[in-house]
């Protein structure tokens, strides 16, 4: 059984998806039961898996597709990190989505594709080789598209079209890169410290070209600067979608992809030998600043958060690109921290929109008084993003800074400081409006929101605080990333 654990984790959501898709819309109790059941089982299985992986066991199950091609699922330390993030947050977001979509149309379709998305995210996490990664990467695009256009309005479809163009374009680049690599190197399993052997010497030009293609393909989802256009546009999607997918699942799979490519396909020293680390770091830095600057001017709350995601995800890319164990720890930890912080913000933003119809920053006056719980969660998330110490953001920024110095790039510290300032510049005004402005007189509660909408952001906010405070605990995200990096960099 132990070897089939990855498959079981994958099937908990992959198997449930078609069943939910087939359910008629008004069977909401059964659908919710299925959803929540699958989510809790998955979290339990992931917990068991992480315990096992921590004690050194490794898992692998695969089927051969064609001569030289096989779908492999494996669970190593890095995949458990991403697995934990996506499974826990999926449980919370499912609860939120059930509350959020009360009385909406096409709910079976929504939840069907929702669990399909998570299945593909889990698949991406547990991919054993580049081919499997590509398969689930594309599956993610297909599964997220109907969610982006879920509202069915013209604007949603415009966003859907843009989203599809970007992600399919990226998918094609990734496919070309992967096929080219397979043509040169045969099967490309993910093995710590790379698997290219002597290829970089013999085929230097094509290996570099492949790297560019792979990073471009994955970079679309990691929202690196020139390829980030789809993220703010797809904010038209309902709140749970933008929360789980555009802040956690899709964007993180892009960053995770970059990690896998740099660590497990090329290997850290090959990337450095090819001189590709610096441009990638520069691109990440550019994205960090660009995202924050654009976020300053967005009045729409979700768009501002979207641009902040664009900037924050590039911390991870920066951590990976700075070839140093400390930066790697920072980057990997930020994968988790940014996830829980950003989902708090998006869920809170969803509550504001749902309960009070507040969608823009200028309308946030006095929200602290009207919705204290959600605004507190939003504040914790925002402060975490800025990097205020007791919260999670500080820990990853601390390690990123240390990593930058370790590589002899003090500019990283300046970058981190600058971006913290920018983060403060676009988050603090919101907090100031929410807490220190009297609410407008004519506000009328649009819809009383139940516990299903309030609880998830509160829980994730608690996670943010815990991840920051208990950073040094063995099972905290930081502890786990140290365990991973020890494998990668030894």
């Amino acid at each position, binding site marked *: 059984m132990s070897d089939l654990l990855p498959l079981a984790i994958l099937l908990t959501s992959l198997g449930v998806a078609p069943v939910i898709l087939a359910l008629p819309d008004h069977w909401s109790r059964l659908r919710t039961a299925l959803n929540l059941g699958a989510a809790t089982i998955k979290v339990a299985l992931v917990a068991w898996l992480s315990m096992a992986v921590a004690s050194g066991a490794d898992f692998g199950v695969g089927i051969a597709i064609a001569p030289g091609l096989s779908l492999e699922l494996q669970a190593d330390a890095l995949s458990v990190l991403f697995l934990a993030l996506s499974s826990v947050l999926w449980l919370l977001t499912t609860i939120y989505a059930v509350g959020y979509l009360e009385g909406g149309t096409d709910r079976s379709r929504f939840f069907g594709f929702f669990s399909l998305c998570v299945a593909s995210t889990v698949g991406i996490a547990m991919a054993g080789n580049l081919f499997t990664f590509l398969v689930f990467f594309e599956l993610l695009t297909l599964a997220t598209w109907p969610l982006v256009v879920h509202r069915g309005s013209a604007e949603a479809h415009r966003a859907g079209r843009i989203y599809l163009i970007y992600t399919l374009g990226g998918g094609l680049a990734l496919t070309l890169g992967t096929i080219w690599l397979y043509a040169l190197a045969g099967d490309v399993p993910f093995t710590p410290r790379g698997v290219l052997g002597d290829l970089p010497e013999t085929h230097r030009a094509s290996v570099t070209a492949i790297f560019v293609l792979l990073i471009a393909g994955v970079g679309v989802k990691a929202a690196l600067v020139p390829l980030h256009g789809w993220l703010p546009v797809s904010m038209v999607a309902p709140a749970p979608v933008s929360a789980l997918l555009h802040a956690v699942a899709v964007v993180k799979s892009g960053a995770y992809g970059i990690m896998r490519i740099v660590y497990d396909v090329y290997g850290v020293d090959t990337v450095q030998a090819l001189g590709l680390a610096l441009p990638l770091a520069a691109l990440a830095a550019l994205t960090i600043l660009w995202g924050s600057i654009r976020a300053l001017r967005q009045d729409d709350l979700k768009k501002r958060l979207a641009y902040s995601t664009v900037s924050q995800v590039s911390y991870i890319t920066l951590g990976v690109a700075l070839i140093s164990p400390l930066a790697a720890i920072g980057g990997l930890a930020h994968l988790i921290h940014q996830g829980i912080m950003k989902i708090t913000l998006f869920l809170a933003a969803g509550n504001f929109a749902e309960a009070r119809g507040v969608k823009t920053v200028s309308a946030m006056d006095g929200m*602290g008084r009207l919705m204290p719980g959600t605004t*507190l969660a939003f504040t914790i998330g925002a*402060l975490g993003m*800025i*990097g*205020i*110490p*007791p919260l999670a953001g*500080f*820990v990853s*920024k*601390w390690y990123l*800074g*240390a990593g930058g*110095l*370790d590589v002899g790039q*003090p500019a990283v*510290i*300046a970058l*981190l*400081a600058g971006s*913290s*300032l920018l983060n*403060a510049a676009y988050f*603090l005004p919101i907090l*100031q409006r929410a*807490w*220190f*402005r*009297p609410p407008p007189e004519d506000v009328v509660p649009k819809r009383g929101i139940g516990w299903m909408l309030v609880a998830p952001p509160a829980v994730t906010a608690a996670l943010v605080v815990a991840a*920051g*405070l*208990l*950073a*040094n*605990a063995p099972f905290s995200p930081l502890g786990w990333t140290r365990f991973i990096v020890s494998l990668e960099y030894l």
Partner: protein
Amino acid sequence: MIAVPIWLVPAVPLALLVAFCVPVLRPGVRSLVPIAPLAGLLAALADPVPAPARIDWLMLGTEFAMTDLGRPFVAFTAALWSLAGWQALRLLRDDPARDRFFACMLMAMAGNLGLLVAQDIASFYAFFAAMSLSSWGLVLHGMGAAQRFAGRVYIGFAIAGEVVLFAGLSLASFATGDTRLAATAGPEVPALATALMAAGLLVKLGAVPLHLWLPLAHAAAPAPASAVLSGAMLKAGLFGLMTILPLGTEAEPGAAATLAAIALAGLILAPCLGLLHGDPKAVLAYSSVGQMSLMALGLAAALAAPAAWPAIAPALVLLAAHHAFAKAALFLGVPTIWATARGPARSAVLVLLALPALALAGMPATSGATAKAALKTGLDGAADGWLVWLEPALFAASLGTALLMIRALILLAGAAPKPDVAADVSLPWLAMSGLVVAGPWLVPDPPVTDAAAGLSDLAPIVVAVALAVGVAVVLRGARLSVATMPPGEVLSLVARRPEPEPVLALSAPVRRGHALVVRRSRPLTPRPERGALAILFVAAALAFAMAVTGPETTHEPETPMSDTL
């Protein structure tokens, strides 16, 4: 004495804060606010200093310890927080947004106490950030336009300071390789790291070029908050500097000169700008800037002559404690003034207020005198090069403070009473005044002072009184009134949108007749700030010239500017 675990010091306020979130517990917790810091006080006063505690799983491995440097700081900070909390309870009894105020206050209290006992970089920085961010809440409490403007300026400086401190700390911790706070003062820490850390802390200290937020914040915040802001939080900056600067190890002439220049600028500028303000709390704020610059001067001296550090350290601590109590007494006095109608009650209060004012001015037989004397003796040991100038600087400081005190008392005397302020606001103020009076006896081992020094202490006060009387006569004769200056002298120029006329907490005394600057017939809007601006740039240029030339070239002919002082 009972052994208080060291980690309890920041934990009690935090626990109260968490309890505060539960609505049903709120009234009970609110009344506990003044008692929260007492855990810190007990820890500080406990005879066997509580053992250091190391918690590995918290943040990046936190460590708490009551160092002998931190002990006095914790003591006076805790006392001050509890009295301010007590008065805040009374003052804001029927303010609808008081819960938010108390939440911010608890967080600031936890941050302030926490950073004094934190021994590792991450938790120090965490408590430091918590303190400055939550005090932003205190500044914004009034929710008026002035509060918003002050808040924006405050948070801008605070965040910039924090980010710079973060950069410095990470550079230092990387260089030394370990995360303990003490290590940041180590020899192998690069100069850039120390400079960055110092800059971050100087913002909190309120040193001159970075002081612009201080008067604004103090004027805008409610009185108890201002008391805590200037009394306890500024001292946190000093405490930080004392831990990160390599004091007592080797001479740092360059840094010492810069720090001295900043201090001198502050000493001279603070009184000038303070006098122009109509709001007593702003005047008191400027006096805090002056006092903090004095302490910075002490640090500069220690940097220049490391040998003198063992003498200067206790003096600085004493000076800090004395300034904390005196300034808090004055700030807590303001609501008392509002609560008492004009007449005999107010004059009694004014007399009682005169005590801390005089202490601040260095009146002999008050804690101020002892503190200044201690500083003088400490500085003597380092008499070389520009240190010679310290003597006149101390004199100027006392003179400036005295003038400011007089101005403040005059303003307070004329302040209109506010009916809605409860009478029992004065109790905490009385307690604080008691502490000020008992100051010299509380100090465990007062430095020895000779009688002669006592006389020379009196001189500045006498000169100040004379000057004040002279100016008053001249003004009354020419029927001129001093036009008050809008707060945030430089920043008010850059206000983007025409801020609505800031509604000051205290309306300036309206008097017919001519302003200092005769208004021309053309409806030119009065520009008193331009005058002040000129003074500002002159003083800064002087200070910079002083710094660049450095100690070995002092004997050249000074620039003419300094003679006119």
